[in-house]
């Protein structure tokens, strides 16, 4: 038996991601949507359309279409001017009509490409194949709530009809880390756009990586393993671990048996930390797609599209990059401000008042964040106007208050809105920058500390510190920077 040697290998991973959209109502009826009502009483979010009762008809949720187009725009997809709804037929009890309204050959969002920023700061282009909108299915349960065994299956149709955006990428991921990074970036994106809560534990996002490996053996011959798909992964950690496991499983299967495996569906077993075989995919299931005659096609005109483009605005990744390059923020600062749309918008409003970008960022990320944590709210909900933050920054930059005094001004602003200048004055935080007063204090301190003066002149730099302290102690609110400057000048003259 020839020994199989792996000289090198190349991993190819593509992903299907299902995102539940957080619209008020379901995809094709006014019934309340399950996505923003996680944990609702089973079968409480249903109506005659969800149940597929005879005579009912679907009516498209325009908001869901708009949300999908926004995600498509954010992923750099071509938005279809004309798309339509198709019926995908299969019999399963969690699908009340035994067909799912989906999009077959004319999805809302076509090809796209997305710049994924990796941990080392480099970027990788991920090509998007398509993104289409459909209705989610219900849930078929084989245990009663609480895990009790029952001899039959039960149905919860709350999830049935929830708007579901299915995003399909090309097999551009080369490592499990990239897969995870994309998942997290996509979560930030849908949260930033406000189209989905993106809560993994609530099933708002489900990932299905499809994986294969091109193995180069000792002779330089390439062996391509069969593509497997891991179903329904709903945490980033599992997504990364399952992908990593499956890559290794395929490689080891080849090493040990020479088999390239078969096209199949796999599941993930958390307790053993391993993927497991579910079913082969030799034969593509025949879904008998055909255009849904109950719905009219979706035509997206220029006016609608440009309105949606405006709503999307600048994306978190672009914002982060701009904050770092143009505004000089650190990566952590940029991320903290740019990942949430409202926070970024607040920051930019403050910047419009002409203060230092870095200073404003510091204030928001220290005092702003502290107050948000205390009040459990977002920056824009604090009630502090962005221009006030800018004004505080200016006071610090102009040496009118010490940086350490900013917290007190913030606290006061939480009580009532007033110009920070006035607040600082009222709180006695304004620094004395009158050179006459400072010089008088310096003269007094020099006169009172001849030893320190002699030490400094003798070359002891540390003596300057005790002299500065003496000056500062002699009067309240002296500008420490000015004190030090003028003291040094005086002593050196």
């Amino acid at each position, binding site marked *: 038996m020839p020994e199989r040697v792996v000289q090198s290998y190349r991993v190819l991973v593509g992903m299907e991601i299902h995102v539940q959209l957080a619209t008020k109502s379901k995809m094709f009826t006014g019934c309340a949507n399950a996505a923003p009502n996680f944990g609702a009483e089973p079968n409480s979010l249903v109506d005659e359309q969800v*149940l597929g009762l005879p*005579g*009912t008809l*679907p*009516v498209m949720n325009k908001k869901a279409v708009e949300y999908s187009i926004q995600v498509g725009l954010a992923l750099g997809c071509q938005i279809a001017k004309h798309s339509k709804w198709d019926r995908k037929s299969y019999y399963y*009890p969690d699908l*009340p009509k035994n067909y799912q309204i989906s999009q077959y050959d004319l999805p809302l969002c076509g090809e796209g490409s997305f710049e994924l920023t990796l941990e080392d700061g480099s970027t990788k282009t991920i090509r998007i194949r398509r993104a289409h909108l459909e209705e989610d299915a219900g849930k078929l349960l084989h245990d009663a709530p609480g895990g009790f065994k029952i001899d039959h299956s039960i149905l919860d149709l709350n999830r049935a009809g929830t708007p579901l955006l299915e995003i399909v990428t090309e097999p551009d991921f080369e490592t499990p880390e990239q897969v995870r990074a994309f998942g997290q970036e996509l979560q930030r994106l849908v949260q930033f756009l406000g189209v989905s809560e993106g809560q993994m534990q609530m099933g708002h996002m489900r990932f299905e990586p499809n994986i294969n490996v091109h193995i180069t053996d000792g002779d330089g011959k390439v062996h391509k393993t069969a593509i497997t798909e891991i179903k329904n992964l709903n945490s980033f950690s599992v997504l990364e671990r399952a992908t990593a496991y499956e890559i290794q499983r395929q490689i080891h299967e080849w090493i040990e048996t020479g088999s390239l495996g078969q096209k199949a569906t796999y599941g993930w077993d958390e307790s053993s930390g391993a993927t497991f075989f579910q079913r082969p995919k030799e034969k593509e299931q025949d879904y*008998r797609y055909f255009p849904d005659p*109950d719905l009219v096609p979706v035509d997206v005109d220029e006016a609608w599209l440009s309105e949606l483009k405006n709503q999307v605005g600048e994306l978190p990744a672009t914002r982060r990059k701009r904050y770092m390059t143009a505004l000089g923020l650190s990566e952590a600062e940029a991320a903290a401000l740019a990942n949430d749309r409202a926070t970024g918008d607040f920051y930019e409003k403050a910047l419009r008042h002409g203060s230092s970008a870095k200073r404003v960022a510091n204030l928001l990320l220290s005092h702003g964040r502290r107050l948000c944590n205390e009040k459990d709210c977002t920056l824009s909900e604090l009630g502090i106007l962005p221009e006030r933050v800018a004004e505080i920054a200016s006071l610090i930059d102009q040496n009118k208050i010490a940086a350490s005094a900013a917290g007190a001004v913030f606290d006061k602003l939480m009580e009532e809105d007033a110009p920070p200048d006035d607040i600082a004055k009222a709180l006695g935080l304004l620094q004395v920058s009158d050179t006459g007063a400072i010089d008088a204090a310096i003269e007094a301190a020099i006169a009172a500390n001849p030893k320190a003066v002699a030490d400094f002149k003798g070359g002891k730099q540390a003596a300057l510190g005790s002299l500065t302290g003496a000056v500062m102690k002699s009067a309240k609110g002296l500008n420490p920077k000015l004190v030090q400057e003028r003291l040094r000048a005086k002593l050196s003259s």
Partner: protein
Amino acid sequence: MLLYDTVISARDAVRAKDISAVELTRAALARIEEQDQLLGAFNSKDSARALIQAKAVDDGERTGPLAGVPIAIKDNICTSWGTTTCSSKMLENFRAPYDATVVRALEDAGAVIVGKTNLDEFAMGSSTENSAFKITRNPWDQKRVPGGSSGGSAAAVAASRCCGALGSDTGGSIRQPASFCGLVGMKPTYGRVSRYGLVAFASSLDQIGPMAWTVGDCAQVLNVISGHDRKDSTSVRDAAPDYIANLEKPIDRLRIGVVKEFQAIAGVDPQVKSAIDAAIKKYQSLGAEIVEVSLPHTDYGIAAYYIIAPCEASSNLARYDGVHFGHRTSEQVNDIVELFSKSRAEGFGPEVQRRIMIGTYALSSGYYDAYYNRALQIRTLIRRDFDEAFRQCDVILSPTSPTPAFKAGEKTADPLQMYLVDVFTVTCNIAGIPGISVPCGFTSGANPLPIGMQLLGPVFSEEKLLRVARMFEATTDFHKRRPVMDIQASVE
């Protein structure tokens, strides 16, 4: 016979207090109760509810253009009371928790719904013999079928159990039974009337429409049920015109199209042919110009129809699986697939199963292009044919059905023979245009049978179609004849 047996006469009599709505309703209900056993027009009724509705009219609480008029509803249109069975074992006990939009509209207009009428199971058929419950007899000759699939509605009006009825028309299911029973029946333009609450057979072809003795009656009912409905994405947004206002005004310089290809259709009864020829002459005498038009793809109409309709039906009827509602097998099953197949095999009749199988096959991968896609291409061509034809004429005149009502059992053995009955009517649904059937003669003999002519017009030409039909009706007496019924005596 009811004392007032047309929609407008009944409405006017109630309005003038010549008769109370309760009296009229009681008379209709009595006829259903006492005489419908053998006719088989009705699947169900709710007498108590109907009488309450009628009393509310008499008390002035319910008003409107149909106040107090007894109306029957085809049993594939959902009502929030009673059952909606589609004459299928599958839905024998199905109670819809909602009213169809048309039912709401009728009741808002004051109509009194007396009951729900028999049909071919899920509206699949042309004789009402495919009902899982009973056959419906033709009031003009009880050995014959009333047509279908809205045969129950047609028989109910013709046998004077109500003044008007709603049917649904997917390939001729309103017009053909109307012609078999001596009534006026109209299939409106696709999208003119909401389909919400109509149990779907073939969604892109189905349309609800009125059946009654006169053109005016149909115009009145259409006035009430037309219009945009947010619950039906395919219903048109433009407001419907008033179909009554100009009904008596003849069309100036009317051009009537006669289809070249229709002359070649075999199997047209000579008496039907001569009645149609006479109708053409009548229009000529009224000043109309007769033009020959061509519909070159007529031959493909039936073939395209029997692909598109079963394809959509196979999908629409997939939901009847014994899981959520409808018939579930009482036999022991080992898995879910067995539950599905046994429930469906027991719940659906042979014609429904046949069409589900045809549709499932035609939509399958590898066959889709050869069947469904081809059928859609033919659909486009048929639409174009009509567009072209209507450049040269206002309406197209033809027989509604190649023959008068045929005998029960005559065509049940051969489904293809039954499908050919739709030859003049299906293209109208395929093109989405409106069509109306109007009584235009009777066969000779001891048991004269009604003959109907069909008028087709371009999309949204209902107003003109009704006026053209009224021109004919106003100068003929066919709509005034009533069947002589002695059911007990005439049925062996």
